[in-house]
């Protein structure tokens, strides 16, 4: 299988320009800017069936076409490198081991949407990635790939590398914009969508690191090639992150549409210590949990949606049969309670309420009504909030309760606190 986004991973000094240039580096950007028009670039990306790899899976080319070119305001490209979805660590690899691949993708994308300024918002904890990315940007400027009139055309482009400061919610695109504007990360109501009112009130495209890193190969080798690699409506490969109870945790580049079973057993080494699989999170902590009978699901956005979960960020977390599912639900609930930004009452209050409820059940002092109340509390957060975080709490924690209800009941049988 041909590696695309991870083709430079593991090579010595792969982050350096001198090495990036040895492998067709910046040829796609040159081709786009000197031989294509912006609408042609957008069209190519649309035909490739490239979908957003941060979590939502929205068709990238379609998103770019929403930028109103008639609007006189400057256009912005923002790269979401806030990678905070538990189970996800792929963007870190791209930032640290192929920053020029991202930069080249940024150049082509900016050209396509008529933007001359891109911000790369990298989570504050990723100190290495921030340094390496800044180094690569500096190299690109020195070599004339960024700045004024690149490739001998009239096209100017600037990139600013911007650090976050520790807030999962800033991975949500509108919270990221708020944060980038120097404020706390409170998501905005949509509509208006960022494509119309985004950074500084201007039309903005926000895309994930991996999504934009797919763009140079698409321009070099064509949309058809990319589309064929994946499955229907979900072109290309993606970087799957595998962690938890597996023999070989790590990043695995595989075609969209590879089955979950194949990823876990053929690539990540299966479950060690002779144990059996009990549950698996398929796409980051927000994705409803799956059971062993669902392992043959194809890992693409549409197939996972069809079985009631999501491909999300590609973060696969495997749980073996030693795992207490009430404990696992508590960990998830605690995560959401800690990371709720606090803006919407159902989420601010509800996420804490869910966590305390599940914690009581886990620790053995549940009150008689706790388990019966739980679905109601969980289900009244999602759908009642400004952003999808509320939906994530409901879908994610709710899935533990619905799929492993007997474990919750067992904890409560005979251990109800009678006060």
């Amino acid at each position, binding site marked *: 299988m041909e590696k695309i986004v991870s083709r430079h991973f593991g090579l010595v000094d792969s982050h350096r320009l001198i090495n990036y240039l040895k492998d067709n580096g910046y040829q796609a950007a040159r081709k786009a800017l000197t031989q294509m028009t912006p609408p042609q670039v957008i069209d190519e990306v649309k035909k490739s069936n490239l979908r957003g790899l941060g979590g939502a899976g929205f068709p990238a080319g379609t998103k770019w076409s929403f930028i109103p070119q008639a609007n006189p305001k*400057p256009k912005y490209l923002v790269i979401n490198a806030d990678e905070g979805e538990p*189970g996800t*660590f792929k963007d870190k690899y791209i930032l640290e081991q192929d920053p020029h691949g991202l930069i080249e993708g940024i150049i082509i994308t900016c050209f396509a949407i008529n933007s001359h300024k891109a911000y790369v918002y990298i*989570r504050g904890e990723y100190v290495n990635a921030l340094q390496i990315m800044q180094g690569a940007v500096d190299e690109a400027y020195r070599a004339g790939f960024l700045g004024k009139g690149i490739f001998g055309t009239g096209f100017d482009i600037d990139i*600013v590398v911007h650090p976050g*400061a520790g807030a999962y919610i800033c991975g949500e695109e509108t919270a990221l914009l708020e944060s980038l*504007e*120097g404020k706390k990360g409170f998501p905005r109501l949509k509509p208006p969508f960022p494509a119309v009112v985004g950074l500084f009130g201007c039309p903005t495209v926000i895309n994930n690191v991996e999504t934009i890193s797919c763009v140079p190969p698409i321009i070099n080798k064509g949309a058809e090639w990319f589309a064929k690699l994946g499955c229907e409506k979900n072109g290309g490969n993606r970087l799957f992150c595998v962690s938890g*109870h597996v023999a070989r945790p790590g990043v695995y580049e595989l075609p969209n549409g590879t089955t979950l079973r194949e990823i876990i057993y053929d690539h990540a080494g299966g479950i060690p210590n002779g144990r059996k699989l009990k549950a698996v999170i398929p796409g980051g902590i927000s994705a409803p949990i799956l059971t062993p009978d669902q392992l043959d699901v194809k890992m693409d956005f549409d197939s996972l949606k069809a079985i009631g979960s999501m491909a999300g960020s590609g973060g696969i977390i495997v749980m073996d049969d030693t795992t207490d599912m009430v404990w696992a639900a508590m960990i998830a609930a605690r*995560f959401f309670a800690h990371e709720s930004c606090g803006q919407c009452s159902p989420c601010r209050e509800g996420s804490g309420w869910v966590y305390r409820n599940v914690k009581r059940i886990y620790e053995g002092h549940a009150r008689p009504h706790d388990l019966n109340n739980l679905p109601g509390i969980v289900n009244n957060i999602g759908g009642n909030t400004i952003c999808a975080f509320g939906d994530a709490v409901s879908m994610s924690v709710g899935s533990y309760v619905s799929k492993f209800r007997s474990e919750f009941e067992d904890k409560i049988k005979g251990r109800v606190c009678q006060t």
Partner: protein
Amino acid sequence: MFSAEYLKELDKITAKYEQKRAALLPLLHCVQEKEGLITPQTEANMAEYLGVPVVHVHEVVSFYHLFHQQRIGKYHFSVCQTTACALRGSEDVIAYIKERLDLKPGEITPDGKFSLSVVECLGACEMAPVMQGNKEYKGFLDKQRIDEIIEKNK
């Protein structure tokens, strides 16, 4: 007011942004790097520098996890407690650090050498259990590795 020296450095950062206020996060990182924490005086200076009410700076400082309003230890443990790390033993790691250093999360040792916080996903699940110690990620943690880290930074 910030000193002239500080202002030179801060201006370099601010120059990259279309709106001055947008530079707030990197500006705060810059000051915290030098002083170790963000004080009310820094917040006031920053508000003046950016031309915003102090409360807007304070909101940001208190919202984001990486900005400290209290001193942290010379070596600060940030240990992940989310799902992938929990599945691979982070609870034992956290308990061990608490025991060895006699610390609860949020506390600093009397000699100021160590402090601890328990955090959510650091984005390094492939080397779970993971911590970030003074910017550096350390994975595959166990009691032995924790002992080594403590010895090295005593």
